[in-house]
């Protein structure tokens, strides 16, 4: 039977084909089952009107109920300001906000996982069907109030643990009384976008921190730059906010001297500046519990001299994602180690998923921190931020078209008990060190007075 035994091997081809098919399915299953299960035709989870029938609750870090789903009906926090402030965190009832917890963490809320499927012990709500966020409802409400109707974003996170305490995006609305968005296109422009996670803006002067980081490691520290109120590069001019004369890096950063940073950028060259921009998180996204942030771009490779100069001071084609930049601030505060921000409180060990990454040397990070501390002491005014040990940088990003610039204020608290990094962005908010800084002041003071 040797002859036939040999020929019978042809069966193994079919066995292999079936096995390959099965493996394909299993791989797909592991990657996509969480999507399949959420299809509204799934009667385990949805009723005939395609409304979720399972119950689930989203809590903030202190146990306040942010959102409750019972029999397909969604109820939000009892306080209107909190509801509005946390709209982008919880999501709206129609799931227009893609990164809201209702959508982004749905499998967590409906109690699905790969092992158990949708199985849960009847009459005994599965504990994992509840979701606790790292956010602080009161802090978010304070931030929303501080924005005072202006469009923008506020983020605060613990740079040692990665927990995001405050995530506010404006404009927003009360999810229990959704307005007719199309009637007010101006007021609700981009209302479904979480500006902290999913938007990018020209960074303006806050980018000087990136340029400064490169300067600290690549140029002599005592080097002086010269500012005559503007700088001529060929036929183009880089303008400055004042005439700073001969100025060192520390003062150049504190006074946000464009001329000095233009010179630094030119001396560094495109390759070095590009490298430090990439290290600072530009041209890549962060993943916040499965949600990808928008990607801020810096591309100065082979840029003309004047473009490189403008890029060094945060203009040119540079864009920044607020959360991503805040994480860079966290890295500076945390000896150069970036702990990636997260939103889901680490309750069962499933999501102990903050990534660690050394993006700067500890030495550079400490020096940068000192520079930013000096900013507060010599420019922003310590009396405005009493007791916060604030290290910060403001930004006023020109947007052209005759509109007011975007106002930025970002940095961190050098405090052991409140290891917080933050970012404030106000669209067309004017001077960063004034408008954005005042929002930051109120938010940070709330943060340290109410707890971590």
């Amino acid at each position, binding site marked *: *039977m*040797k*002859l*036939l*035994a*040999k*020929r*019978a*091997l*042809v*069966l*193994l081809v*079919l*066995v292999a*084909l*079936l*096995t390959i*098919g*099965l493996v*394909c*399915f*299993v791989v*797909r*299953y592991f990657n*996509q*089952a*969480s*999507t*399949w*299960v959420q*299809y509204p*035709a*799934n*009667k*385990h*989870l949805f009723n005939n009107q395609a409304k979720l029938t399972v119950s689930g609750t989203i809590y903030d870090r202190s146990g306040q109920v942010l959102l409750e789903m019972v029999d397909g009906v969604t109820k939000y926090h009892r306080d209107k300001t909190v509801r509005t402030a946390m709209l982008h965190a919880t999501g709206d009832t129609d799931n227009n906000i893609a990164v809201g917890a209702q959508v982004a963490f749905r499998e967590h809320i409906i109690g*699905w*996982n*790969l*092992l*158990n*499927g*949708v*199985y849960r*012990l*009847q*009459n*005994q709500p599965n504990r994992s069907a509840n979701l606790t966020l790292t956010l602080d409802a009161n802090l978010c409400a304070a931030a929303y109030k501080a924005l005072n109707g202006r469009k923008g974003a506020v983020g605060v996170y613990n740079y040692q643990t990665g927990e995001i305490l405050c995530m506010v995006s404006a404009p927003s609305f009360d999810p229990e009384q959704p307005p007719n968005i199309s009637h007010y296109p101006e007021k609700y422009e981009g209302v479904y976008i979480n500006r902290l996670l999913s938007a990018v803006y020209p960074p303006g002067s806050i980018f000087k921190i990136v340029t400064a980081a490169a300067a600290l490691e690549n140029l002599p520290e005592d080097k002086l730059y010269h500012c005559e109120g503007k700088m001529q590069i060929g036929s183009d001019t880089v303008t400055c906010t004042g005439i700073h004369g001969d100025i060192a890096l520390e003062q150049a950063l504190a006074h946000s001297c464009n001329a000095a940073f233009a010179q630094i950028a030119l001396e560094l060259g495109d390759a070095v500046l590009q490298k430090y921009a990439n290290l600072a998180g530009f041209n890549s996204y962060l993943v916040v519990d499965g949600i990808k942030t928008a990607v801020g771009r810096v591309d100065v490779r082979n840029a003309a001299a004047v473009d490189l100069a403008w890029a060094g001071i945060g203009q040119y084609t540079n864009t920044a994602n607020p959360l991503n930049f805040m994480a860079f601030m966290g890295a500076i505060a945390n000896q150069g180690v970036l702990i990636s921000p997260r939103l889901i409180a680490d309750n069962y060990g499933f999501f102990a998923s903050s990534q660690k990454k050394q993006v700067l040397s500890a030495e550079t990070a400490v020096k940068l921190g000192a520079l930013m501390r000096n900013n507060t002491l010599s420019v922003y005014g310590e009396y405005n931020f009493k007791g916060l040990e604030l290290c910060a940088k403001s930004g006023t990003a020109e947007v052209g078209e005759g509109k007011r610039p975007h106002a930025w204020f970002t940095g961190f608290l050098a405090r052991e008990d409140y290891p917080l990094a933050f970012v404030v962005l106000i669209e067309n908010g004017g001077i960063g060190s004034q408008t954005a800084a005042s929002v930051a002041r109120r938010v940070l003071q709330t943060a340290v007075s109410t707890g971590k």
Partner: protein
Amino acid sequence: MVDFLDKVKQLLLQDLSSFFQWLGKLKSVFAHLAAVGDYYSLLVRWLLPVLAVIIFLWCILPLLRDRKNQTTWGYLYLMNGIRVPIQSWECMLGRGKNSDIMINQPFISRNHAVLTYHNGVWSIADLGSKGGITVNGARVEEQHRLAYGDVISLAGIEMALLPADIVPAEEGQEEQVSDNSGVVNSTGTFTLLLIFIFQLLGALQIIITRSAAVFPMLPVTVFALMLAQGLHYHVLRWLQFENLELVLLSYFLCGLNVFIVASAAPHSLYKQLVAILLGMAVFTIFSLLIRKIGRAMKLKYFLLAGALVLLVLNLTLGEIHFGAKNWINLGFITFQPMELVKVAFVLAGTATLDRLLTTRNMAAFIGFTGACMLTLVLIRDFGSAVVFFGAFVVMAFMQSGDLRSLALVLAGALFGGFAVVAFVPYVTKRFAVWGKVWQYAGTTGYQQTRTMIAAASGGLLGVGGGSGYLVNVAAADTDLVFGVLCEEWGLLIALLAVLVIVFFAVYTVIIIKSSLSSFYAIAACGAATIFLLQTALNVLGSVDILPLTGVTIPFVSNGGTSMLTSWALLAFIYSVK
């Protein structure tokens, strides 16, 4: 006397009424069971996959163990004093590597002769060798009967045929008896017990969840099934069947089948039970019938004639279900004739080694395949057409070993396949949705998307028998069984069910080298191919890896004819050794 009878009657009636009262109470007990049931399912959903894995391993490990208990049917004494035991009914003699008895002499052709032992008669056939064959000095033209003591000469190399029983006593130990069968059987009984537990636990889960809907059909079916399995298993042992793990694996699949039917179509539980029982009987009878090659050959022609009748009946009396005209309704019974034809089809592709190597004539097989394919195309059952064609290719290759014509046939089929996809609207639609079922989730992708949703809902452990929703989708118990298994019993058990089928094929490949006749080898390969292809088309089709086709998973899908056919085909795989 009359008084007495009246009294008895009264007593009986009382008894009966109290029995019915008790029955009624039993039903109300189910309500309370629901609460207990939650905790029951919590436990059982972990227990069942573990049991299933143990059952699977306990079945395949003994089968994979190499056993050297082959019977010796006779000896060839070569003139140089070497004695070669003949352990197969068909032995090829020659110089080539594929010869069972290799004689490395220059005058011997690569494939010189076939020595056969059919129905107690020895014979030798010349495979067109250059050197020729003589028996006792007389030249053999094509085939020659042999008697013990005959001296055979292959191109001058002489040898003598001697019976197996005149072995010198001191070499008696070479006659291996199946001495380790006792060990095997005892683990077999243990495995059977595990299968019983698996079936009981699973059935109880469904009873708790579905209560009235499956009462009393499911308890009756499961107990009858267990009884039948126990009985069948012991009858087979009594008949000295070996390698019963194959049968145990089928029991396991039948248990899953009962779960699915109970969940999806409880009203057809009894029908399915009857089909399983008949299947077991068919398996036993088939295995016994084809033990002797002569009977097997007679059966072949008998079944072929029957199959031709079925083909005609299907074309004339066929009824349309789900787009294919593949049912026959005889009033008291409905069945799918093409399922039954598979059995005859597999037999049609068989040939004994001497025929296979001398005549090389497959005209009858090709003709029969053509008739089957034509019927399948006419009744629009393209899924089955693929299965038949695949089995044809494999069996034709087993017969001819010709890779080149195999490639040609496949290319032709591919061409034909394209034509079907392009010009048959019903198939075109199936292909159009392939790979993008989510875009057509409400229409042509309905079944596939629901299967995937169900599979995802079940996770690895399942939501519990009777708690699924996929069973409400049309043809869930036949075309989408994989999804039902995934949803209610979990991905692990569903994959295991498929692995059982895969194992049937792997086992076939392994065991063929010790098969007695190429008849069995080819039949087993044909059966294994049908099993594999049906499973692949069903499982992969239902989850959008392949286009959806309406074929069943052997043993697992609901369907009486499919169940019968599965058991009959299993007999071919089983009979290899």
